[in-house]
């Protein structure tokens, strides 16, 4: 049966003219603000202290008057009743039907409450993402995911089901078993972190003697959870390893599934603007950036999430609006190249601003290097030291000197910094399933 060729999950919203979309966003912002003020003691007090009432927000520009909230506030509020979420929640506790938490990468995990309405909403947002990436009812989708306490691919699972795909939960299987099930069941798509997508390809080749590009039927992969899907060199590796198209998705446990690549892949990711408001704030002046091409910090609002609203959440993620449109016809704006970095990740080393994603882009662009690497920033006396650990692909060991020379040159060009490089045996650096921790800055611990 030929695959459904329609483009949009919901043309009513996805092709809404920009001025109408802005009117919709204003209306929805006012609605969620009113909801939070009326039902969440935290938000009511937060806004009262700022001298703000929902009626003060009349225009799109007025939204900037609303104070931003941060993750630290979410953590603090968890000490209060009702247990375990605190008074940020805006529904009676007995209406909560699902608990999830953030991974805790940047500190104490933040707990997330969902009602059934919220959970259907999560799944619906994933339908917009997956449909835009080419998933259709005829697809058989594998989820090589631990089905644990993190929201991660739970919502993707429900979204794919809602869309009508056949979904296979690959939870309590090891990597080899997952690959074999994907092969035996002729799965056409799967979703995972970039690290695990590359790790699975490696396992297929080295432990099972399979070439995923030749021996499996995967046509589409959705990558999420790490910036790799926005980094062209990493994406190229994934696509070559699997012989499939790789589409990026960006989401936040505290907010929702807010951004995605469509099949046109113009170089950026659409913001699901009918469901979320993304604002970009200048890192130094705090001014809201409307023009494309300028980096700033993302402030995001989730319009329809009711149990635990996220209103003007300061994500610390650095993004920029794209200078180009997408030929797909969606009127949702694009961010250029995904998450460029994190405001609290971009760190000064040897007096130069360094984004860990820049190192990943270089390492992954050199095919003779293995997929894993590790960066350790430390102090040698008074000076900063950057140690980069890499692996060389099997069969390429004889070319080590020229590979390392090329690597150091590229790092200097892309990051303006010099590195000590250590070569480790292939397969010896840590392999991760979720949220890889490759960048370690131990300078603070040493002082």
């Amino acid at each position, binding site marked *: 049966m030929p695959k459904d060729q329609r483009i949009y999950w*919901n*043309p*009513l*919203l996805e092709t*809404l003219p920009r001025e*109408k979309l802005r*009117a*919709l966003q204003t*209306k*929805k912002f006012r609605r969620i603000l009113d909801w939070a003020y009326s039902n969440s003691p935290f938000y009511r007090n937060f806004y009262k202290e700022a001298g703000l009432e929902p009626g003060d927000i009349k225009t799109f520009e007025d939204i900037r008057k609303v104070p931003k909230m941060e993750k630290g506030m979410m953590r603090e509020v968890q000490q209060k009743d009702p247990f375990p979420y605190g008074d940020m929640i805006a529904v009676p506790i007995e209406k909560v039907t699902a608990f999830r938490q953030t991974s805790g990468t940047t500190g104490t995990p933040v707990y997330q409450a969902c*009602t*059934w*309405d919220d*959970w*259907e*909403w999560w799944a*619906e947002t994933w339908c917009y993402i997956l449909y835009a990436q080419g998933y259709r009812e005829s697809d058989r989708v594998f989820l090589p995911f631990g089905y644990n306490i993190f929201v991660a691919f739970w919502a993707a699972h429900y979204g794919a089901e809602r869309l009508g795909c056949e979904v296979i939960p690959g939870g309590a299987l090891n990597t080899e078993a997952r690959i074999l099930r994907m092969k035996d069941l002729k799965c056409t798509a799967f979703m995972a972190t970039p690290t695990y997508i590359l790790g699975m390809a490696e396992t297929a080749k080295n432990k099972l003697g399979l070439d995923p590009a030749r021996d499996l039927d995967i046509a589409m992969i959705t990558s999420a959870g790490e910036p790799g899907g926005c980094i062209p060199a990493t994406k190229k590796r994934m696509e070559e390893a699997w012989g499939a198209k790789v589409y990026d998705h960006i989401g936040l446990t505290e907010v929702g599934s807010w951004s995605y690549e469509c099949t046109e892949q113009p170089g950026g990711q659409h913001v699901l603007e*009918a*469901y979320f408001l993304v604002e970009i704030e200048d890192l130094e002046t705090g001014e809201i950036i409307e023009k494309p091409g300028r980096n700033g910090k993302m402030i995001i609002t989730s319009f*329809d999430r009711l149990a635990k609203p996220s209103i003007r959440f300061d994500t610390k993620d650095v993004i920029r609006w794209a200078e180009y449109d997408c030929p797909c016809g969606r009127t949702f704006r694009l961010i250029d190249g995904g998450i460029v970095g994190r405001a609290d990740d971009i760190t000064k080393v040897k007096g130069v601003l360094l984004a860990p994603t820049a190192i990943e882009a270089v390492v992954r662009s050199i095919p003779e290097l293995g997929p894993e690497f590790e960066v350790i920033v430390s102090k040698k006396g008074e000076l900063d030291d950057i140690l980069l650990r890499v692996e060389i692909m099997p069969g390429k060991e004889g070319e080590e000197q020229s590979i390392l020379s090329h690597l150091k040159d590229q790092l200097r060009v892309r990051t303006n910094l010099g590195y000590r490089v250590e070569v480790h045996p292939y397969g010896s650096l840590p392999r991760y399933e979720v949220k890889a921790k490759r960048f370690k800055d131990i300078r603070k611990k040493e002082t």
Partner: protein
Amino acid sequence: MDISMLEEMCELIKKMRRDAEALKAKGKGIMAVEKAVDRILANVNLLEINVCDVKEVL
């Protein structure tokens, strides 16, 4: 899409909400009814987000 078609869809969605809420009220105390209606209403909510919200800005 034709605006009148959109209006008709919105009327049907409103009716679905009214009917579902009436059923919940009628079945009050029967958990099997109340919870099934809650799930229906969660999807009515999505129809309102996906369809009725659009009508209001056109």
